[in-house]
Each structure stands twice: as structure tokens, then as C-alpha cells.
């Protein structure tokens, strides 16, 4: 009793008394939740250790490595020819880009000239792949937001068409192994180009349809506007790239700033959303990118030259000259870089991959701080992370 008395007396005496250090603070129990690795919406086997206060996230720890397959080590123990087939499993939604980064780096060391038709074909399939990857993202992102059964499968209709194109040209629907060191694997038939052209004509309408359902939906706006705001500075400090960075207002696109392949000859804009960098902007960035990719495909179909498609012989004895080289491409998730040291044998000496998902994931903990549990999926989904791409 006396302590209360004294406390009150003290309070009367000096009105602005600080909280007594000996007084036990009101303690709420923080709840620690393991989100994953088996959680339905972590897109694979990511594990988030969340410290929750009620439903508000106080601290996030990403535990990665559940899908680590030692892709770099495997590259050093496989021949070039074998590794070409393996590498598009890293980012299974956009396998064309990993192949392309590997081939570009190897070609830089080797000095091999890629035929122009092959370059155009590379751009064509890569942009198609970008669209298919973004379409899948769109569907799964809406699943994350809770539109469980309706809309999410709708973009898959178009994605299915693209996968059929790839099947026809590469023989595979996901692991293409189409872009090879020195060119591309196969020249598609004329009818294939016609189909792609038809697809590009329809696709603009399709995006309008998606936007009509999703973009201005009040619940979608409520869930995404002003949620997970990623500042320009934070994004650049964490090495975030791709649409996620561009939605924060940095117009950084490798296709424009360090042009490779035939991109300098193509006309396209880099969509930048310098509004907030919230999840809605990231959504818009991807939707706009699909439109741009569609335009690029149209141009490529017009400009496609005739000619050779391959300069190197593709067999088990495929070798790359000794030397070091780095090449980067703009994948749907950001800058995908490949650094190779070759010693001239049929195996590379060292591989180092720079994967966009890894850097993009690293920005998740600061984004999630002080957000309610429901926003985790809205934010995490908007970063568009592929777990095998994180873990390699």
C-alpha cells in the first residue's frame, strides 16, 4: 500500500514524473508463429518466423535454404552441355532468362557471335516467357489476397497458350533448354509465328479484361493501396531490382540502361510508378510490363531476319575458351546475373549467380514490420519471389 501512496505523492510533487524504472511494464505475450515451410501461400518452402503482437507483425526472420540444390556447385561438376539443360530449373517460371544469362556470359568468354535471327528469336521467347511468368504471378497474387477460386485461374488460359508455343518450339513446357551457347536450339515453323502474332493481337484485350476485374476493385484497392510501401532509398539499399524497384520510382531496366542483344533496335518504354511504391504500384508495374512485352513481340515478329540460328555445335564435347565473364539479363523478377570462370575444359571452373529473388526477399522483413497478419501475403506476394531462385 505504501508504494501506491508514495507513488501518488511523488506524482503530486513533481507532475511530470517519468515512469518508475522498477515498476514492471505491462507485458503482453508475443506469439511466435512459423509461417511455412508448409504454409499454403509461401509459394514453395520459405519459412518465416514471425513474432506477433496480437495480429501485428513485430519481427520477421526469413529462413531460406529448404530448396537449396547447389546449382553453382553442380555447374562446376557438369559439362557445359549438361549444365545448359539443368540451369533453367533455377527459376522455373522463367527458364528462358537463366539460360540466356548463362549463354550470354559463356559467349562473352568464348567470343562466339550469335546470329542475328537467333538474337531476335531469343528476345521473342524471352518476352513471351516474361508474359507467362507475370500471368502466373497475377493469378497466384489474387489467391494470396483471398480471391481463391474465381479469378486466379483466368490468366492461366493465356499462359496455357504461351506454354503451348514453347512446347512446340522447345519440346518442353517449363524446362525449355531452348537458348543455347552460340544461338538457339531450333528454328520454329512459319505457322508458329502466325500463331504468336494472333496471340499478341488478342492479348492486349485480355489485359484490359484483367484490369477491368482487378485494378479498380474496391476490396483489391483496400488491400493493396498504401500497403507495404517500399521507398526508393530502401529499395536501392537492399539491391532490389525488376518491377519491384521500378514501382518504387527508379527507372532501372537493363534492357534500356545496359542494352544487350537486339534491345537497342526495339522501341519500348520502361514503366515507372513514382507514386508510393506500394503493392498496388507493383501490380500495375507488372501489368504494364506485360503490355510492353506484347509490343516488343509484335515488333520482333515484324523485324525478324532470315538466316542461321546457331554457330556452335551442340554435343557433349561443347567447350568454352578459358577466361572470365559476366552477363546479366532483365528477368521478370529483376537483374539476373551470371559470372563464370572457365578454364577451357568441358566444365566450368566456377559459377556465381546473382539471383533477383534473393535480393528482393531481403527487403521483406522491413516491409512487414508493424503490419497486420493479413498484409503479409499481400506484401510477400507482390514481391514475386520464386523460392528455387532464392535458394539456388
Amino acid at each position: 500500500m505504501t508504494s501506491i501512496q508514495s507513488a501518488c505523492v511523488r506524482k503530486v510533487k513533481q507532475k511530470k514524473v517519468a515512469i518508475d524504472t522498477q515498476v514492471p511494464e505491462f507485458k503482453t505475450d508475443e506469439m511466435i508463429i512459423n509461417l511455412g515451410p508448409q504454409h499454403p501461400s509461401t509459394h514453395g518452402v520459405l519459412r518465416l518466423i514471425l513474432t506477433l503482437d496480437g495480429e501485428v507483425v513485430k519481427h520477421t526472420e526469413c529462413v531460406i535454404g529448404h530448396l537449396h540444390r547447389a546449382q553453382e556447385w553442380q555447374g562446376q561438376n557438369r559439362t557445359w552441355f549438361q549444365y545448359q539443360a539443368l540451369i533453367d530449373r533455377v527459376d522455373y517460371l522463367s527458364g528462358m532468362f537463366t539460360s540466356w544469362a548463362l549463354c550470354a556470359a559463356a559467349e562473352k568468354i568464348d567470343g562466339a557471335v550469335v546470329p542475328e535471327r537467333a538474337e531476335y528469336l531469343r528476345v521473342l521467347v524471352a518476352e513471351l516467357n516474361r508474359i507467362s511468368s507475370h500471368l502466373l504471378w497475377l493469378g497466384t497474387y489474387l489467391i494470396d489476397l483471398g480471391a481463391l477460386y474465381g479469378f486466379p485461374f483466368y490468366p492461366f488460359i493465356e499462359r496455357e497458350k504461351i506454354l503451348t508455343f514453347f512446347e512446340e518450339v522447345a519440346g518442353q513446357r517449363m524446362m525449355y533448354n531452348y537458348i543455347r551457347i552460340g544461338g538457339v536450339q531450333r528454328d520454329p515453323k512459319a505457322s508458329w509465328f502466325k500463331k504468336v502474332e494472333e496471340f499478341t493481337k488478342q492479348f492486349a484485350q485480355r489485359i484490359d479484361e484483367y484490369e477491368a476485374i482487378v485494378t479498380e476493385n474496391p476490396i483489391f484497392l483496400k488491400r493493396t493501396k498504401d500497403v507495404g510501401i517500399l521507398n526508393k532509398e530502401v529499395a536501392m539499399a537492399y539491391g532490389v531490382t525488376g518491377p519491384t524497384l521500378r514501382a518504387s520510382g527508379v527507372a532501372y531496366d537493363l534492357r534500356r540502361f545496359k542494352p544487350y542483344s537486339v534491345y537497342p533496335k526495339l522501341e519500348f518504354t520502361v514503366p515507372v510508378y513514382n507514386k508510393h511504391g506500394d503493392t498496388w504500384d507493383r501490380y500495375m508495374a507488372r501489368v504494364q510490363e506485360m503490355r510492353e512485352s506484347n509490343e516488343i513481340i509484335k515488333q520482333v515478329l515484324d523485324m525478324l531476319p532470315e538466316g542461321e540460328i546457331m554457330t556452335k555445335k551442340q554435343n557433349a564435347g561443347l567447350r568454352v575458351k578459358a577466361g572470365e565473364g559476366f552477363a546479366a539479363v532483365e528477368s521478370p523478377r529483376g537483374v539476373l546475373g551470371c559470372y563464370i570462370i572457365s578454364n577451357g575444359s568441358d566444365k566450368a571452373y566456377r559459377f556465381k549467380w546473382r539471383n533477383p529473388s534473393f535480393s528482393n526477399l531481403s527487403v521483406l522483413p522491413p516491409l512487414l514490420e508493424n503490419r497486420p497478419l493479413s498484409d503479409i501475403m499481400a506484401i510477400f506476394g507482390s514481391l514475386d519471389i520464386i523460392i528455387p531462385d532464392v535458394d539456388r
Partner: protein
Amino acid sequence: MIPNAAEIRKLSVLSFSWLTVIFVAVWGVCWLVGILIPALLANSSFDFARAVSEICEAITPLLAVMVFIPINAMFMVLMERRVLALFTRRNGPNRVGPDGALQTAADAIKLLLKEDITPTGADAAMFTLAPIIFFAPSIFGAIPLLAAVTNNNKLFQIADLPTGIFFVLAASSIPVVGIVMGGWASNNKYSLMGGLRSAAQAISYEIPLVLSIITICLLAGTLDVVSIAKQQSGGILNWNILGGGALTGLNKAIAAFISSAGPPIAEVIKTYYPYGWLSLIGVIVLCLCTIILFGIYLIGACAEINRIPFDLPEAESELVSGYNTEYSGIKFAIFFLAEFTNLFIVSTIAVVMFLGGGDCPLPTWLNPLSYPAVYIPLTNILSPILSLLIDKIHLINPDTFWAALWVILKTYSLVFFAILVRGTLPRFRIDQLMDFGWKRLVPITLVIFVLVAFARGVINFHV
């Protein structure tokens, strides 16, 4: 023209056959137990037999509900999956049975045969009790509605409930206890959060839900479901969704205009709208209010039964599966069954309270069957068969048949609407949900309540 006309045709055939099966099964069982067995036992001299026949008659409504709920839930699950497939241009389940018709039956058998797991550290008794508490109220809630949707057939009256709609509302408020109980007893953090969310959500959205229903009761002047349904008979203009009888005078006036033998139109209008332009304002206000109320009821009901966009308690992408994460086997099946039954019951309440119950939407003066020139020849042709079925063995009660048919049609339209919503909208966040409930719905409903109370004073209802 329509890209998936074939799928739509398949779906309609599927729905028609399933609904027929439900109709025949429920009616067959009820006829057997409620009419045939008592009729056979009626002439018996044993007291015991009399007692049996009395018991049979007494349990008929309960039996109807018990037969109806599982079959109906099976069909609803199948319909939901097929319709969603239609929206997203996929093929739904189409392997088990003819065109996938038996898929849900197979699922149900699978769930019944699965191992029933109780997680370590769970409170076993509460864990078992939760699905029962979740499911049982839907049976009780269905019983007063049963009399209302079958045109008050004697067979389906279990008791005279002057507080029918209150009974239904009380029953529909219980399941949340089951959710909280299951969420707590599972010994799982996701389940616990699902249960807590559900409690918060159900308590907040029950207020607009009950207020909208109470406003309709204020319009109807009674709490009895059967008489509320009866009041609305006579076409869409008498339904509660259009002012709850505010347009009855208009309806009567048109009927009088068409038939020359009726009373003069001016007199009809004078009886129903005694205050001139004031009455006109009252009619407009009432019509607007009831349409908004219907929307509020649908929103509140969606939240009450945890459907998208209010399915936070089982938010699959956040809480894995919420309160039923740890459930498996038959307990999960009961949760699942109850969820769909609740959807159906909520739609039935909407039909009875707003959409006229078992009433034909066409006003009497538009309905060809109400003109003697049409129905007398029709009955003459059909009488040899119908009199046998209706009068001799009581197989068909025409009023009940039509009422049940209309109710099923209206209810399934609402269910279809719910599926459409599920196929389109993302989920709310919990704080947005609370904001929407307390800051939008509750004030709107309160204002409407007061408006309706005043507007009702200047119009004569259902005289």
C-alpha cells in the same frame, strides 16, 4: 456466341437431375413416414399402433430436414465447383459418375473412411464437441422455415412458433461458439486466431443482420415466419424486397383495371394510400429502404457464414485453414456440411423474408394460370391422374409443390449469386471488415429502421 455453351448445358442437366433426386428423396421419405404409415396404421385396433403413427407424424419434419441436408450439401458442393469452373473456363470435376455427378458423394465417402485425428495437447472433449455445436443449430434453424417454404403444409409443422424468425436467428447465432471452441481446442495458433477472428466478425455483423430482419418484421407486423411468407403472396409487387406491401395497393388497382367486375380504381387507391402525396413519398422511401436492406442482409449473411469476401476465420492464404486446420475425417466433413447448409439456410431466410417465400413472381393479373379460361381446361385434361395422386393417396399437394419449387429456384439463384461473388472478390482485412461493419452497415440500418417506422404510418398494408 457463348464460349462455353456446352458446359452450361451440362451444368443445367446436372443441376436438374440432382434437384429432382433431392425433391423425390425428401418427398418420398416424408410421404412414406408422414402419410402412408399413419394411414395404414389408422385402422388398427392397437393403441400401440396409434402411438407409432403419432410418432411417425411428429418426426416427419425432422426427418425431412435430416434427409434434405446431406444430399443438398453434396449437390451444393458439386454445383459450386462446377460453376466456379465455368467462370474460370476450366472443366470442373467430371470423372466420377456421369459427368462428375457423383464426385461429392465419393468425397463424402472418402472423408467418412479417413482416420479421425485428435492432435496432441488438444482438449479432446471440446475438440469433438465443436463440430456438433457448429452443425446442430442449422437443423434447428431449418425447422421453422420448413413450414414457411411448403405453404404451411400440415406435414411439416413441428410446433406453432409465434416467434419463428427469432428462433431462426437465435439458432444461426450459435455456430460461432463451435468455431471458437474448435479453434481453441485444436491447440494450434492458426486455429486460435481463426476462432478469435470469427468471434469478432460474427458479433459485429450480427447487428446489421438482425436489424435488417427486424425492420422487415416491423413492416410485416409479426415475428411468425409462416405469416410473413403468407402476407407476400400475390406476385413480385407484394414482396418485401419492394416495400413489403407498399405496392399492394398498386397491385390491386391494376387488377381492378384489368377485370371490369372489380371495385373502382380510385377507391382502391384511396383505401391503400390515404394521404395522397405523403403516401407516395412513403412508398418510394419504403421501396428504396427495403432494397438497401436486402443488400445489407446479404452482406451480413455472407459475413455470418464466413463466405468470401468475409472468410477471414478460414483465410486459406493467411491462416492455412483457420479454425478447421486440425480437423480431419468425419469431424471435418461435419464442418464442411454445416458450412454449406448454413449458406442454404441463410438464402432461404432471404427468400422467405424478402423474396416472397413460395410465391410465384408473376402478379396474379399477369399469371395465365390464374384465369379460369386457362386453368379449367388444363385441370380437366389432367384430372384423371391428378385426382388419384392428390385425393386418393395424397402423393402430391399442389400448393406445397409449387411453393417448394419456387423456393428452391429462388434459393439456388441466391446461392449462385454467392458463388459468383466468391469467384470474383478478394478478401477483406480484419480491420477493414470491422470498419465496414460498424461505421457503414450499422448506421445505415439504424437510419433505415427509423425511416421505415415513419413511412409505414402513411400507407395501409395488406388490408
